[in-house]
């Protein structure tokens, strides 16, 4: 589930996939600061070929938020 998303998060945030869940965010992932979050947003946009709006960008606080936004764009995370 959500393999591709988790792989990107793991790569950018420098954490193992097993440590990532929907609640992961700045509290559980040490590297999750505003800059790395932005790098992550940018790379997710590129990987899934979508563009978040500025408002959507600001709503994302954790991994679950990423999933919600991606689903909104019709990305099938179960692929």
């Amino acid at each position: 589930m959500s393999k591709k998303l988790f792989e990107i998060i793991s790569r950018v945030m420098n954490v193992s996939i097993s440590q990532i869940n929907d609640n992961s965010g700045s509290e559980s992932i040490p590297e999750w600061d505003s800059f790395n979050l932005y790098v992550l947003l940018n790379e997710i946009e590129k990987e899934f070929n979508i563009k978040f709006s500025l408002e959507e960008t600001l709503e994302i606080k954790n991994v679950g938020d990423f999933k919600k936004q991606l689903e909104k764009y019709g990305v099938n995370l179960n692929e």
Partner: protein
Amino acid sequence: MFGEEKLSTYLNRSKLLSNVDCENKIRVAILGSFTLNGLEETIRVKCGDKKIQCSTYIAGYNQYNQEILDEKSELYKFSSDITFLIIDTRNVLGELFFNPYSISVEDRKQFVKTKSDEIINLAKIFVNKTQSKLILSNFVIPTYSPYEINEAREEFGLQDMVRALNQNIKIELCHDPKIYLHDLNSFVTKFGENNVFDYKQFFYGDVKISLDHIPYLAEEFMGYVKAVLGLNKKCIVLDLDNTLWGGIVGEDGFEGIKLGDDPIGRAYVEFQRHLLALNQRGVILAINSKNNFDDAIEIIRKHPNMILKEDNFASFRINWNDKVVNMKEIAEELNIGLDSIVFFDDDPINRDYMRSAFPQVLTIELSDSSSYSQILKSMNDFQVAKITNEDIKRSKMYLDQRKRTELQKQVGNLEDFLKQLNISAKIKKADQYTIPRISQLTLKTNQFNLTTRRYQEEDIKKFASDDNKIVECAQIKDKFGDNGITGVYIVNKENKQEWLIDTFLLSCRVMGRGIEEALLGQIIERAKMEGIKKVKAQYIKTMKNKPAENFLSDFGFIRNGDIWVFETTKSIKKPEHLVIS
């Protein structure tokens, strides 16, 4: 180079950097008027890849003014070797960026004058207070104007303002050896403003160079780092078939190869044109190709569309020998290190073989011939701190060298060969004409260099005005031509009894012809005439200066700890086959 890694790759790699194996060190400061996160990490990783240990200092966001003006700032405490200053057009123009026509033409001109002066002044203050080089990015010319199609009709319009700002700064600062003007405007043009400037990133965090482009900017900046450290490549070694022309001469024949007016042929002609321009600027070219010599040389000599001629190449290895062996021979013949060679070969097997045998050779990844020119243009490995006359004459010098080697082969005996060369050495003091070259030689001479002390132009200038130092260089000529300034020495007159040779080096082009003995002998003679008892020297071993290892002992210096001493009462070696003036 061409095609970059993701920024996150650099960010992660920056955490794993170790400084083991580093051969060079550099301290880099970055000052910007906007967010440049990721740039510092990327530069450190790129330095690590080149075995450079890089320490960085990032000034606070938009703090460049205070940092430069305050002598006690962290910036000065950090004491960088190289400092990048990037100021954004928006920061300088303020509200005028949006509505430049809210003020009169005269006011716009005055505004630009004031801003130019501020920046010029800031740059001058900085370089006067530090040893650091300053890399000042120019201002990006806006592509949008509220006057749209009428922008061009306006006298001193928005774009003119930024152009004038860039031009004023260039005129004032381009001759300062400590300042380089980085063309940020061309960087943005190359990638396109719509790609480099991303509104969302800008609103989110004042990012004005998008995250995807930070690695490319870092790569451009690496060109300055390499130039300041003197890590430039000196020579491009080229394969022939499908590298300098399309097709295989041994199969397709003189008429069959593609070089000229067809789509494939044009790609090779274009590539050769860029190579020729680099050659004329001082990059040496050589050939390493598996071919019948006669077939290949006929194309080089007679093909009407061949841009590079026989005389553009300093060395040929066109044979059926192992390419790695050929490469080693080329390096020896040209007297350059393998690490100053770039290798172009279309065959992936040859490339892999070269990489595994000589990882220090920069072997370039090639695929489609239409991209050769772009790959060459995107390389920042040939940058030198300053292009000197010697650079421009270098290709001719290596050609002369090839002829010398041919003579040596004919004569056979070294002594007779040296006699026939008619070598003369003209000693020149450090002055405005020779200082750039003296500094350049200290920065890049690795092999025949006793102490490998690297000196920037301003260091040499300072030494030259010091009465207790001798800073001189030697211009070497022989019957084949002028080698230019190829020897440098710096002597400290320590006291009335003793002199210490701080620097003594000879370019590899003229090594091994008795010039080193003649120059050293001449220093000692002078010391003796001035009543000096002892001339002291040092040999500081590096990875590369083995050729100078036995020089002092062979000359008659006696070792005393780390210092080598020559008593001036001893007889002084004097090679007879050359004239010093």
